[in-house]
């Protein structure tokens, strides 16, 4: 007689005992201990601190671990930045770590043919066999004098990253640590750098602000401070006016005072029109920006101003900006281009400026990662300069210092092969004429991630014979996805470190199962929210169920050990020598010890009272164990106006006329023996001469002609996306309607009902969306939250691999929904090197199926 579940449940709750190995094979329940003395039966279990990396807010969280199982997630009470809260994403980590579709063991490809249509015929192999094959391939490259033909592709990382992304390729002899940053948001950093001298994301003083102007930013749903923003938004809305510029009625737009549904790609017109209104009406902040010497406002529509009449204070070049660009950019002019009524433009500009200096102009990838978005990024950030909210109370801020250690220098471990190999230029063509990638002023200073595919295909600058990629999935996450399929078919040997058999794994020779970064790995991140900078530890709070290894530490250690066995010990020497246990001086004996020692070393100033920086910049935990338990180190509060005297630009002022950009462009032009104008042309910009040095309007660059492709396509993010990795979670699917306009268990393309009527669609039909580079199929949704003439679709679904939920049919490689990156062309904001997936970069047509 087998026990029914009902009886079993009764039994276990009465006895309160853990029941093991019942006849009939029913799983044992780990039950709770009942305290007979009081009625307070309590589940044993411990809340353990770790870090959620579902998005790049990177939040300290806690997980309740009971009998080695993760039960639930909450914020970390010790985290000032997040008010001890966690957003919805964090909870889905549980479904990720326990996903049945996770890879359990290393796999080796047995079908030598590669392609989307080819089954890799993976077989399980041991770690030793896998690492041995990898090390053999690497030694082959070394022995042939071609170490630079090795690439390390970095995906989702912690600040242990330089162990695998910096040291491994370089000590080996390759310059090619290639990050994903350019498909993240580099163009967004371009704006603040070439105005404020700050190549980074900003923090925001939401507590004090009186106006929040979001440019595609959707803080209630996505990067970069979701728990903070969601916690305080109600109060912010009571104190401040919120205006959201977004082609879609996002969550934040739905809870704002003003929605400006800009035509995709026309954000720049709006930004310069705001600036025009602010100057024309004399609303700029005089104490910060400067003023006319005689106090008379000469900014009149259509009229140039002579520079001598204006005295700059903390800024540079306002008159130059007006004369070159702003004088004609009236609200009426902008209304025609943006689809935003002139009176709303004026109202928002006035409201924004009236709130000065407590007015935030909040950039996002949406308004920056456009083909011609570099100048839009500058224009949107320049608004902060106009109202003096830069680095100021109620405004946009940098971050307090986190005195973590940087990775120990590995150059001393280069042998002659490595010295020679690392002198090669990086393989992604950064710094080429058409890819200035002017990270922090340097030509080729930034990565051009998506172009790595083309570089592989063209063997330019040189062939690539081997790559290791970790926590990335470029075949899914890069626009012009098909090129990555082709590149990986060509790439002779590819190793993928991943939790799931994703699209990129499909082309791999070896797949190594990765420890989950929230539950199974040692690492740490640095981030900022709520004017607090913080370091948060990733801690292996669960014993992994499967034979996984930590991506950034255990795997490179194993490779280093094998390389040493094969006669190349330098990498292992580096790991052993430079990452001793800071407390005992012990040398790591294995990958796990290495992981712990490395984490202790890199975080040492935060927890070690012997260190000179201990306690100086924030928390003073009582040693390493205390930091591990608390999970987070909080900085002191960020002080306002620290940088006003030395912004870090060429003039050290906030530049409306960017001498910094002028210098960077000129250097790049000289390097290629061309003029700056020729650089701009190669980068698809229309500006010439001095206009190139000021924020200005550029007409959006779109693929496809209007006649053949009548709709402008734009994409957006999901509050449930754990980057590209959560579509396999059933909770993702069953809550997808939490993204405004979207539907459960579906991946819809949203069009305005007016367009639905024209197309004869009622909603729910299957459609095909076709762009000049590809096509996808999905269901259509009629929704008033998007502008007629546009198609808005969320990123994150359309997986044809990854798992049984993310894909509609994993074996047949049929996607659930459609991957936007199949129809988005591979184009770039070239001045930053960033991928351009926004701004309505492609037009599309809709076909009924």
């Amino acid at each position, binding site marked *: 007689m087998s026990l029914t579940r*009902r009886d079993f449940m009764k039994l276990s*709750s009465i006895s309160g005992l853990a029941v093991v190995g019942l006849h009939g094979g029913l799983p044992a329940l780990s*039950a709770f201990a009942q305290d007979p003395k009081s009625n307070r039966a309590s589940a044993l279990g411990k809340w353990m601190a770790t870090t959620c990396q579902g998005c790049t807010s990177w939040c300290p969280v806690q997980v309740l671990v009971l009998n080695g199982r993760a039960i639930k997630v909450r914020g970390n009470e010790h985290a000032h930045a997040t008010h001890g809260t966690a957003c*919805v994403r964090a*909870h889905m980590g549980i479904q990720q770590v326990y996903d049945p579709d*996770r890879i359990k*063991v290393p796999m080796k490809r047995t079908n030598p043919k590669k392609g989307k249509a080819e089954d890799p015929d993976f077989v399980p192999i041991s770690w030793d066999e896998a690492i041995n094959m990898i090390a053999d391939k690497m030694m082959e490259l070394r022995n042939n004098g071609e170490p630079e033909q090795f690439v390390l592709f970095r995906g989702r990382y912690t600040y242990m990253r330089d162990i695998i992304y910096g040291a491994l390729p370089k000590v080996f002899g390759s310059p090619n640590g290639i990050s994903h940053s350019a498909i993240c948001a580099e163009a967004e950093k371009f704006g603040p750098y070439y105005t404020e001298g700050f190549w980074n994301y900003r923090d925001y003083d939401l507590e004090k602000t009186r106006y929040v102007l979001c440019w595609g930013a959707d803080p209630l749903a996505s990067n970069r401070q979701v728990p903070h923003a969601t916690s305080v938004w109600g109060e912010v809305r009571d104190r401040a006016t919120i205006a959201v510029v977004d082609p879609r*009625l996002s969550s934040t737009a739905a809870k704002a005072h003003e929605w400006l549904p800009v035509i995709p790609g026309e954000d720049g017109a709006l930004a310069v029109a705001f600036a025009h209104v602010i100057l024309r009406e004399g609303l700029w902040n005089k104490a910060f920006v400067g003023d006319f010497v005689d106090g008379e406002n000469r900014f009149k529509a259509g009229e140039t101003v002579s520079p001598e009449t204006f005295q700059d204070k903390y800024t540079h070049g306002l008159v130059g900006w007006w004369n070159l660009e702003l004088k004609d950019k009236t609200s009426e002019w902008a209304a025609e281009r943006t689809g935003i009524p002139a009176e709303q433009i004026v109202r928002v500009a006035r409201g924004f400026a009236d709130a000065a200096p407590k007015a935030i102009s909040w950039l996002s990838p949406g308004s920056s990662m456009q083909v011609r978005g570099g100048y839009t990024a500058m224009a949107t950030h320049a608004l902060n300069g106009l109202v003096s909210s830069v680095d100021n109370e109620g405004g946009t801020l940098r971050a307090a210092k986190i005195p973590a250690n940087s990775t120990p220098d590995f150059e001393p471990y280069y042998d002659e092969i490595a010295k020679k190999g690392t002198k090669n230029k990086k393989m992604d063509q950064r710094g080429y004429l058409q890819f200035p990638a002017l990270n922090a002023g340097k030509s080729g200073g930034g990565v051009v991630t998506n172009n790595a595919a083309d570089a592989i295909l063209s063997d330019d600058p040189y062939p690539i014979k081997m790559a290791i990629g970790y926590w990335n999935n470029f075949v899914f996450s890069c626009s012009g996805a098909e090129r990555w399929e082709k590149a990986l078919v060509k790439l002779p040997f590819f190793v993928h470190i991943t939790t799931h058999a994703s699209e990129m794994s499909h082309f791999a020779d070896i797949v190594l199962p990765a420890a989950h970064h929230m539950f199974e790995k040692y690492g740490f991140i640095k981030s900022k929210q709520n004017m607090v900078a913080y370091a948060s530890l990733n801690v292996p709070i669960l014993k992994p169920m499967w034979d996984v290894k930590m991506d950034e530490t255990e795997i490179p250690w194993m490779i280093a050990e094998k390389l040493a066995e094969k006669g190349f010990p330098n990498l292992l020497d580096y790991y052993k020598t430079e990452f001793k246990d800071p407390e005992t001086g012990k040398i790591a004996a294995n990958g796990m010890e290495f992981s712990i020692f490395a984490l202790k070393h890199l975080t040492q100033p935060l927890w070690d009272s012997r260190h000179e920086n201990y306690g100086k910049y924030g928390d003073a935990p009582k040693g390493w164990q205390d930091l591990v338990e608390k999970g987070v180190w909080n900085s002191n509060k960020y002080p306002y106006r620290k940088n006003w005297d030395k912004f870090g630009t060429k003039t050290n002022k906030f530049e409306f006329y960017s001498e910094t950009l002028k210098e960077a462009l000129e250097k790049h032009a000289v390097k290629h023996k061309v003029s700056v104008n020729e650089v701009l042309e190669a980068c698809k910009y229309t500006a010439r001469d001095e206009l190139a040095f000021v924020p200005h309007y550029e007409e959006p660059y779109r693929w496809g002609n209007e006649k053949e492709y009548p709709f402008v396509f734009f994409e957006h993010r999901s509050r449930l996306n754990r980057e590209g990795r959560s579509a396999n979670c059933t909770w993702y*699917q069953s809550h997808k309607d*939490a993204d405004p306009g979207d539907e459960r268990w579906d991946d819809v393309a949203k069009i305005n009902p007016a367009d639905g009527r024209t197309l004869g669609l009622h909603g729910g039909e299957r459609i095909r969306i076709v762009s000049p580079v590809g096509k996808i199929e999905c269901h259509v949704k009629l929704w008033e939250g998007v502008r007629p003439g546009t198609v808005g679709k969320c990123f994150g679904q359309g997986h044809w691999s990854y798992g049984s939920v993310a894909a509609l049919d994993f074996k047949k490689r049929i996607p659930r929904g459609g991957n936007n990156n199949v129809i988005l062309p591979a184009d770039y904001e070239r001045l930053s090197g960033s991928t351009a997936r926004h701004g309505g970069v492609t037009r599309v047509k809709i076909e009924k199926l």
Partner: protein
Amino acid sequence: MARFAMVIDLHKCVGCAACDIACKIENNLDADVHWSDHFTETRGSFPNVRYQYVPTLCNHCEDAPCVKVCPTKAMFKNGDGIVLHNADTCIGCRSCQLACPYNVIYFNEEQQHNMYRNDQPLMPGLTASGKEIADKAKAPIPNYNPDREKTYQGIRQKGIVEKCTFCDHRVKEGKQPACVEACPPEARIFGDLDDRKSKVNQLLGKHTSRQLLKSKGTRPKVFYIRDF
């Protein structure tokens, strides 16, 4: 003896569904069972559009029709105003579902959590199967929360109904319901209407409040204040 109720502040709510997922985690719910749920509305026409997200859950009505129609008294109200369900005496007749105007009662046609009984790995020898995960976890689902067993079946069996219990198992211990704890802006406030000083009473005294389907006369105890 209390009279528990919930106030939902739509001004603070951002529509993130953290409450929905936290509820699933607390109560071992299957993916498509939404004890904590929501509906959304989009009104107007572009560009004059208003979107709102309204969290919903069992209203623990003062005059609960589900309790009235239950033939076995499996659906009952406890002394603290919480409408609870006895899994042992439920016969799965589903009268409560018909009676409830809010559609917050779920019926388990199948055994829950099929995913963790599936023994077919996606890639045999290479990925796990749901059953393998559950076996390794020594639990019916890997993140099984045994706390739920204190007052209700940990995972409700096939053939009976189930619904939100205001996390009575937590409330008994002086804790907040899981949905309340999970909400970052603290938009959900739970408390005792019979306690003059309770936060729910403070809010109901300060703000105009609404209830869903008030005209049905069930006297729901979930109140909405302000606007999304």
